[in-house]
């Protein structure tokens, strides 16, 4: 049964890849399952959810939490994206919190995930992203939500110089066109 | 070997004498606040049509230094709603005889105004506009993309662009004029008829006694007046507050830009609401361009550069030939916008205090019509028929005149 689901799914960019790590590397890494969770911060309901997933909801927008299974991105004061969580995690959470006030949404297909890494990753992003990407300010383990070439994106600064871009599926092709074009000068270096 | 170099049209000169700078009298029959295009036109028509010459036009800065000093100078009357078509068509008819009547060169040039449509829904709303003009007997043609190309060869009508041109409305009687020359024409004529133009005179308070206006406090002292007319565009809310009432206006930055002098490549006016750019090429050869307002309230007379960058990207998609032109100068004005993007005109809750405001991004084209109808309204102390639909109380009854489409604000 499972292979029917895996076999018939298609991602917005069909696992496209470009470049190399010592200049600029772009690649879609699709099919990350994701739960978007909205809950009153530090409430008892929030603590129950943290227990179920063995995670911590960071309280400042832009902070993240990483465990073996999940990466938790803080998008808003009561809004987190738990990458790696899937439907049965949702079922466990609902079992734990019952009718308590929270919103659990499987939004796995809402966005796809493009990795931007390599020596010139920051420069390529800076051609279309207006926020500060200076590693002294946008440190590893931080995330920022904004617009990159008119496309809404969430950028997660994973290991040093490796950026994970979560972009809404319908904007993915445009983002790819922009990034691959922005990489023109750097691929030659 | 000297090449045959391209030279620009040399504009004729302004007259030797423009206007008197009289000192302020203690009282006047009518005080007009704001020496922009509308204020000056109002004073001129008060004197010319009604013989009311004991008038002062008070300007806190320099004459025609507000929006009249910097705008994209587009003139047309092919608006959607009957009420708008009424006042803008009256204005266009006045434009057609203005230079002669006022005796001043204004470079009024009916080179046509084209409004492009870029999607099926955009096409539908422009077609409705076209048919509304037909029943209102406003001259307006429908153009196919090929006809657009014939009139303006530099337009890119290729179907492969992001938002292709699918058609356009075209008003042949529309066009442009030189804003400074229009203002100085009105100012000179009004001054010659006995109107006092007072610059550097800022109104601090509008004095009202038992519901009736009696005069204004200024930085040059109190001046009494039987009637006071507000024509201060972006500063209307500030004046209304002085007189103790409120107006549903928001003042927003509106930017315009020009290029350097270039060979003539465009001899009509082209507007595109969906792609956010309007453009014409002035007589000497500079490209004159504008788009929508910046997004927030402001009296700073400047806007954000991202508005300019987006507008120029849209312009290059529509007009690839502009790619080498240089951005030479950008301005920001203060435009007063009502919730339905239509003006607020006529009487106010204060007796003998009149309001002419809310023209937003479309004030220049309305200058003669607004001045003419406002003068009539002031003279008779009742709203002229063209002014009546734009009363303040339309916001209470709900009878709005929604011209958001025309203002190019993405609906």
């Amino acid at each position, binding site marked *: 049964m499972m292979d*029917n*689901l895996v076999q*018939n799914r*298609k*991602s917005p960019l069909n696992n496209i890849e470009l470049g190399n790590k010592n200049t600029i590397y772009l690649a879609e890494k699709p099919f990350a399952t994701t739960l*978007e969770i*909205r809950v009153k911060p530090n409430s008892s309901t929030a603590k129950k959810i943290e227990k179920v997933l063995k995670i911590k909801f960071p309280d400042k927008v832009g902070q993240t939490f990483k465990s073996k299974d999940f990466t938790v991105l803080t998008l808003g004061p*009561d809004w987190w994206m738990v990458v790696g969580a899937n439907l049965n995690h949702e079922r466990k959470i609902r079992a734990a919190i019952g009718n308590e*006030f929270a919103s659990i*949404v*499987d939004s*796995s*297909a809402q966005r796809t995930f493009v990795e931007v890494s390599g020596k010139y990753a920051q420069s390529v992003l*800076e051609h279309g992203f207006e926020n*500060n990407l200076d590693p002294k*300010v946008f440190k590893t383990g931080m995330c920022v939500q904004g617009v990159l070439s008119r*496309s809404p994106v969430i950028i997660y600064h994973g290991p040093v110089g490796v950026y994970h871009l979560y972009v*809404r599926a*319908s*904007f993915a092709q*445009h983002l790819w066109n922009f990034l691959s074009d*922005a990489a023109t000068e750097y691929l030659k270096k | 070997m*000297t*090449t045959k*170099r*391209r*030279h620009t049209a040399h504009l004729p000169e302004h*007259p030797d*004498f423009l206007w008197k700078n009289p000192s302020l009298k203690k009282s006047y029959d009518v005080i007009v606040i704001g020496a922009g295009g509308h204020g000056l036109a109002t004073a001129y028509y008060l004197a010319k049509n009604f013989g009311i010459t004991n008038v002062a036009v008070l300007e806190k800065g320099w004459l025609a*230094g507000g929006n009249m000093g910097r705008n994209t100078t587009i003139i047309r009357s092919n608006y959607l709603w*009957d009420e708008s078509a009424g006042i803008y068509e009256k204005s266009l008819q006045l434009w057609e005889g203005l230079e002669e009547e006022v005796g001043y060169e204004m470079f009024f040039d009916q080179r046509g105004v084209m409004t492009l449509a*870029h999607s*099926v*829904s955009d096409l*539908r709303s422009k077609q*409705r506009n076209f*048919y*509304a003009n037909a*029943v209102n007997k406003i001259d307006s043609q429908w153009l196919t993309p090929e006809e657009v190309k014939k009139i303006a060869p530099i337009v890119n009508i290729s179907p492969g*662009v992001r*938002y292709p041109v699918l058609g356009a409305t075209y008003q042949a009687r529309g066009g442009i004029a030189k804003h*400074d020359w229009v203002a100085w024409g009105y100012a000179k004529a009004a001054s010659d008829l006995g109107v006092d133009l007072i610059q550097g005179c800022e109104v601090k308070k509008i004095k009202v006694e038992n519901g009736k206006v009696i005069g204004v406090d200024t930085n040059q002292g109190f001046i009494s007046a039987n009637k006071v007319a507000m024509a201060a565009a972006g500063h209307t809310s500030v004046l209304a507050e002085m007189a103790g009432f409120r107006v549903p206006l928001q003042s927003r930055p509106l930017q315009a830009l020009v*290029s*350097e*002098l270039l060979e003539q490549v465009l001899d009509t006016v082209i507007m595109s609401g969906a792609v956010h750019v309007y453009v014409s090429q002035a007589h000497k*050869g500079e490209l004159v361009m504008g788009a929508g307002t910046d997004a927030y309230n402001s009296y700073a007379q*400047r806007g954000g*550069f991202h508005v300019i*960058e987006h507008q*120029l990207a849209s312009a290059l*998609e529509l007009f690839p*030939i*502009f790619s*080498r*032109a*240089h951005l030479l100068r950008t301005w920001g004005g203060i435009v007063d916008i009502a919730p339905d993007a239509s003006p607020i005109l006529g009487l106010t809750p204060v007796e003998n205090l009149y309001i002419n405001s809310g023209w937003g991004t479309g004030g220049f084209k309305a200058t003669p019509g607004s001045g003419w109808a406002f003068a009539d309204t002031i003279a008779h102390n009742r709203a002229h028929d063209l002014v009546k639909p734009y009363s303040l109380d339309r916001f209470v009854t*709900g009878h709005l005149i*929604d011209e958001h*489409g025309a203002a190019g604000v993405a*609906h």
Partner: protein
Amino acid sequence: MSTVKFTFDGTDYRGNKGEPLSAALLRNGIKVFTESSYLLRPRGVVGLGYEEPCALVQIDSGSGEPMVPSTKIELVDGLVVRSLAGVGDLPISPDKARYDKIFKHVDVLVIGAGLSGIKAAAKAAHKGKSVIILDDQAQVGGYLNDKNEKINSKLLKNIKKNNVVYLQRTTAIGLYDQNYVVAVERRSDHLSSEIIPNFARMRTWHIRASEIVLATGGFQRVLVFPNNDRPGIMLSHAAATYLHKYRVGNFKSAVVVTVDDNGYQDAIRIHKSGTKVEAIVDIRAKVSGKLVKEASKLGIEIILNSTAVDTSADQTGAVASVFVAATKLNGEVIGNKREIKADLVAISGGWTPTVHLATYLNLKPVWDSKIAAFKMPKLPQGLSSTGIANGEFDKVENLPAKFFGIIPDGEDAKVSFIDLQRDANVRDLRRAVGAGLTSVEHIKRYTTIGTAHDQGKTSGTTTMGLLAQLIDKEPQEVGTLTFRPPYVGVPFSALAGRDLGILSDPIRTTPIHPSHLNANAPMEDVGQWKRPWYFPIEKENMHEAVLRECKAAREGVAVMDASTLGKIDIQGPDAAIFLDRVYTNMFSTLKVGSSRYGLMCGVDGMVFDDGVTTRISENRFLMTTTTGGAARVLDWLEEWLQTEWPDLKVFCTSVTEHWSTVAIVGPKSRNLLAKLAPKLDVLNEAFPFMENRFADVAGIPARIARISFSGELAYEINIEAWYGLHIWEEVMNKGREFKITAYGTETMHVLRAEKGFVIVGQETDGTQTPQDLGMDWIVSKKKDFIGKRSFSRSDTAREKRHQLVGVLPLNIQTLLPEGAYIVNEGSSNTSGKIPHIGYVTSSYHSDALGRTFALAMIADGRNKIGQFAEVPMGDKVAQVEIVDSVFFDKENTRRDG
């Protein structure tokens, strides 16, 4: 210095790689460069940078560029240029060069890499701050570099540290609020005269800095006197640099006319280059100090209390001699003229600090009599200035004189130029003052001074000075012209960057798009989405395709990609109460597993969106919105929750792109669904209208909803977007036996219009209430909701408002144009305005009705059903009947199949 070849006005010349084009032209003896735009007077090179008012060229090689100052072009092999007289050309060929943008944040941005700029950058770098220092020259040093003087290497070492970015050939064009600077870097014009592929020719930098240091130097001013525009009359700093640094030669004898000590320094440099300096003519009465001694030691005659009062020309129009005379500081010529032969007249009219960037924030420059110029205004926190820009001129023994030239009358006034590019002269200035103009803004517009390509860089302060004298006021009372960005002309292409063509705006597509492309369905733009418009087979046009698609939907089974609808997942104990407040009808009464159509109004009571909302569980709803309204509705819900009803326990999350929606429509859709979801009981009783069932469709978990926008039996299959294409292909495969037909937005519009269903954005334009649309049934009487209060306003409750009705042309083939206006019978041909009673919103051919039909908004329309009217259509007039707005399946019998 390697020599390169370039072409000027069709003739080939040689020059040194990297030197300014103007220097190479002077060395090649080109003194008369062009003629002025209006008066056709011969003109030559005047300056050394962006201040150049006359020597402008059209670059024909590479990308091509109009109106470029020849002083700012670095010579490169193969350069091809033409002299201009003030008007540029626009090449038609597309520009193949690449332009891009970049966004940066730094602690300190230093604008100007002269000595003072380098010092500021070094200080910041030393403190470990992140620094960008930019300059429009190719190397550091600014004026020192022009004088062949070096900056000490210790300072330079500091700006080589890795926390410093040094941008050459980069000009800051705008300073905006909160320390935001836009600068344009020219990256390839100096490397090659050809376009370098895949390399940004220009890059537009957007820099946000905590601190900005304006080290922007200044411009030297011209002096005004009769015939001050002849070729060979130059700014003295430029002349000295051309002769001494670039060794252009070609000038035998020079006269320096000055108001300050800089004149002496430049005279000495000119002398050292081998050109004889006949005299230094200084307006000041008393001068002393090292420079003066050195100049006279070199045998240069120094003539005080004097200035230039006229010049003569040789047969080419270039300057041949200068007439000097004793002159008072107020411009009154008191001595008699003395002619001095000279083919170079170098003017040192005083220096003006470059204050433009600061004034873009509406800060007014301040007159400083010590330097006889307007200098930097008082700057807000985070902004500072240094060097000449801040009025810190080099240590001078003698202060510069407040003197801008003489102000002749009559014929002489006509040849005493203030703005060389606009041919604006003293006569124009006198006329403007005589015309009653006192404001400098009026003077500028009357005379056109300062409106040319150089934007008054050399003429601005001079105009102020002369005007102040004419209306005897002090310069600070006259004030300055308003400077506006950009500081220098910037090509549109550099500001458009790569936001062109495929990248001009995102093209949003659904997961099923690849299949639509294979079917080569023409697309329609709906906001940023591309949606299949119709699915032509062979040579069908839209009309033929739509009739076929409609027939399939009414008689067989048809399928549409509905994935673009907005989808909002609404969860929380107060979700139901919340929906009751935003929709006009009740949602708290909706059963779990059921769906209901809802209408949303603004506070003004006007309809602004609609869609079906499904109750997934007690505290969870899935709302759909129009494609165009998706973002707007989510923002609307969030605004009310956050700013009005914070205690309502409701959270909203967009899931628009998590779900794909495949709608199968038509009498055979139930049979097809049975094939697709064998385990699902599809009978009407088991799966009634507006209900939802969960089942596997083609092996994929799906939520199936019985929602119909066509009036037919229909099922909307919602699957995770990863499976959208797979399900579409399965539906097409399994549907083949039922002759399944794909349909697009046009058919969807026809099917819903036949049922009288409105489309928000087509029937509505933001000025229609639910009642206008004949939807009183959806307006709850029991509860308050957003907009309800507005229904009772006098105009909103007015009788004769426009109402939704049907319109049938008497000729069943006539297709009324959408947007056409409707008038009373017989009134189409009145000469004046024709009173209209309404307009057509939707108009189509209907396969089901076998004729054309239309929906319209007509004043008091519902009371006019059965009456006749006319629709003027250009030259023809269509007679029409006003009918009910539902044309087909009036009793709603078809939806259960």
